[in-house]
């Protein structure tokens, strides 16, 4: 820190100071008065659920979004003009390593590192390759690395690619200055790769820079960072907790927030007869998975990314082709391995799959609520020559009422609804078919408290009417209030089955204990692809 000059004002002790930063899209406020300070040579973690505002914050810092007036961003005591201009951010030493690293595979290391920085000869406008390579070698040397600079990036191992991305990020840093934001950059790395990655990050910090690390891997955040900030619903819940005084479970509770437990548990609706029986399911990491699900029973699948919980739920829902296995639903036996050109046979057997990504997998944004809601049944309830209007109108009206969709307009375009109402339409699309097996993937993700309440009530009602329900979720709060039992997955196997009176804490502990520090390298490499 010796390279640091005089500290004349308070701000100057911070490498980055974000004050009162807000961002609204129309009426929706996605960031509200965010405060964040990062000291020189600090490794600062930023965690939060999907949709909590992490990526919005990064996009403001990199100039993609213009923040609402009133906020400020200060680097080393110098205020940055808002909206942030990318070149100003670079000059101030702010750089980002994105999730996919932002590398162009079929270009060489030096071309990737110098991308958008090429200097050209004054008259010839040719790139001065020698000088470029010297700069790249210099940046790599700061990390203690040496590569053949002409090698194509695509040929490198994942951790070497990460190293190239880091070299690119630090090349503009002044000695003893700079801040790198890592936005989920470790997703593609193996366990060994991660160790090396964090070695490089340490080196960056020893060189005087600071790091803001955004990650879903809580244990990694706990292990590596100095302090951590938790975002929830666009607001800072805890700013800069010293990491040594917390753990992954405590952070999860902060991320989810106590407010999620708005429901009491109610008695099970499980009956004696079976809704579905799954035999020998094999998909992704999962193998030999069996399940007997009773009518009216609600079972939760949970686990960290890559654990197989999602893969199992998707295979049962018919969304993913499995390697092996079959299942029996109400007398129909379905092969889980058949090619999934369409889920027609699953739907006919009474299986409904409520997908996680509602606008990519669940609903067509440009079409109406009514059309989206009735889509799975237009063939079975209509004739070849005519869909028929009355049942569509009745079904849509019933679901709009049951789930309290707003506005209650069957002809509204789905894309014009709020996220919570879209989720309700998606749920209604499948509930209206009265499924005997209902598979839901993150049913309350990124919806507000009110919508969550309606969704939970509707799921309970479906169980009460006799559907067997599977909920694949990482939201311990949801699982605790809804499920009769929760299966915790790890490495493709069920490592714990929780029954009885469930609490979110138990589920979180089981998830993290099952995963623990001894997670296998293979498991970690799968994460990027498995979700």
């Amino acid at each position, binding site marked *: 820190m010796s390279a640091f000059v005089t500290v004349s004002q308070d701000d100057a002790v911070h490498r980055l100071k974000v004050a009162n930063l807000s961002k609204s899209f129309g009426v929706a406020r996605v960031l509200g008065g965010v405060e964040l300070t990062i000291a020189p040579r600090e490794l600062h973690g930023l965690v939060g659920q999907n949709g909590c505002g992490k990526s919005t914050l990064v996009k403001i810092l990199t100039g993609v979004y213009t923040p609402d007036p009133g906020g400020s961003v200060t680097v080393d005591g110098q205020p940055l003009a808002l909206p942030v201009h990318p070149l100003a951010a670079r000059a101030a030493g702010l750089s980002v390593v994105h999730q996919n690293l932002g590398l162009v595979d079929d270009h060489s290391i030096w071309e990737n590192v110098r991308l958008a920085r090429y200097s050209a000869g004054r008259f010839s406008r040719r790139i001065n390759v020698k000088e470029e390579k010297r700069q790249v070698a210099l940046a790599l040397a700061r990390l203690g690395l040496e590569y053949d600079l002409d090698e194509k990036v695509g040929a490198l191992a994942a951790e070497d690619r990460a190293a190239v991305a880091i070299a690119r990020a630090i090349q503009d840093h002044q000695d003893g200055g700079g801040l790198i934001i890592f936005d989920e950059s470790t997703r593609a790395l193996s366990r060994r790769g991660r160790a090396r990655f964090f070695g490089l990050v340490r080196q960056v910090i020893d060189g005087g820079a600071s790091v803001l690390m955004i990650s879903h891997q809580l244990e990694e955040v706990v292990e590596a960072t100095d302090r951590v900030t938790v975002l929830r619903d666009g607001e800072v819940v805890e700013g800069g907790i010293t990491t040594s005084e917390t753990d992954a479970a405590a952070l999860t509770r902060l991320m989810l927030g106590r407010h999620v437990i708005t429901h009491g548990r109610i008695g099970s609706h499980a009956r004696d007869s079976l809704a579905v029986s799954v035999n020998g399911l094999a998909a992704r990491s999962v193998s030999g998975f069996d399940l007997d699900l009773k009518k009216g029973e609600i079972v939760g699948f949970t686990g960290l990314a890559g654990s197989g919980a999602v893969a199992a739920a998707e295979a049962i829902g018919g969304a993913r082709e499995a390697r092996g296995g079959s299942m029996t639903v109400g007398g129909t036996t379905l092969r889980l391995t058949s090619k999934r050109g369409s889920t*027609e046979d699953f739907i006919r057997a009474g299986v409904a799959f409520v997908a996680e990504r509602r606008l990519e997998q669940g609903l067509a944004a440009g079409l109406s609520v009514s*059309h989206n809601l009735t889509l799975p049944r237009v063939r079975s309830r209509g004739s070849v020559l005519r*869909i028929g209007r009355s049942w569509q109108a009745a079904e849509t*009206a019933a679901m709009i009422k049951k789930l309290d969709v707003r506005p209650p307009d069957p002809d509204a375009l789905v894309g014009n609804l709020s996220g919570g109402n879209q989720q309700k339409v998606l749920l209604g699309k499948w509930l*209206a078919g009265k499924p005997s097996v209902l598979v839901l993937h993150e049913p309350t993700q990124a919806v507000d408290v009110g919508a969550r309440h309606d969704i939970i009530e509707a799921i309970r009602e479906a169980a009460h009417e006799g559907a067997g329900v599977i909920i694949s979720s990482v939201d311990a709060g949801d699982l605790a209030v809804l499920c009769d039992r929760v299966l915790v997955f790890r490495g493709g196997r069920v490592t714990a089955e929780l029954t009885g009176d469930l609490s979110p804490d138990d589920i979180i502990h089981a998830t993290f204990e099952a995963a623990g520090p001894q997670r296998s390298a293979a498991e970690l490499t799968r994460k990027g692809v498995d979700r």
Partner: protein
Amino acid sequence: MTDTAQQATPAPAAPPLPKRKLPIPLQHAGSRYAVIGVWAALIVVYWVTEPSLFMTVPSFQTIFGSQQPLVFMTAALLCTIIVGEFVDLSVPAVYGFAATILPVLVVNHGWPVWAAAIAAVLCAVAIGCVNGFLVVKVGVNTVVVTLGVWTLLDGIAQLISSDNTISGLPSSFSKIALTQVGGLPISFYYGVALMAGFAYVLWFTPLGRHMRFVGASREVSRLSGVRVDRIRFGSFVVAGLLAGAGAVIATAAVGSYNTASTDPNLLPVFAAVFLGTAIIEPGRFNPIGTFIGLYFLETGIFGLQLHGLQNWVTDVFYGGVLVIAVTISTLLHRRTS
């Protein structure tokens, strides 16, 4: 209308608006008929400026009696563009190919005209199958496949016709196109029936609903039990069928075909299909809008030609309208998403 309604609380839900027939978003009520308004204005302008020539029965017979080939080709393009294949460039070439082999088989090879007509349509269907196979099953880019097929077919058509106009179809065969009904050739009514049928399929049948959803999102459709690839493949096949049938009817009317008249169809087809997205169902490809767009374009060009403007007018008008129509359609689409 049975179980779902009863299972929800007995109180009758908000009246489910059965009166409105067409599934059209309300918010564009104004823009929906804007092009029709412009069309009417255009007619008034020509009426005032060329009263003796424009507002006459023969003029209207020319405008409405001449567009059958384009109606069939736009319907073929709509098939694939509605299910989300961005542009099938081969439509006019498939049309031209079928229109070439019909007289070639009859005149040069002595086939019976009906057999030749069926062979021409089957050829067009087969080409649709090839397009569909390459795009849907193999996954080759639509533009590349259809660009190649377009050029390939043009070449073969020139070869088998020796680059000449092949004429000499029996005049009795022309009845299938030229029989007069109410002052217009029956081929006009084929076009009306085709587009009306197409619109019916899209609005009222499960197949049409599935097509719309496949065009909007393949993954959403797949997870909703729609056989996505079958619908995409089928669209290419039907597109071939429509282009082939259109070619047979048009060739019957004229009695001959020259391969040089194939390619000039490309721009009007695209201009009408994209202009159609600004009519009736704003932001969406739709048959009725396309049909109206087609006659709008023809009216505009016919009027300009009456004013003594030459052939370049056609290119300027079609090209200009295509760009403007796509711009409008993009803006409408942005407003809804």
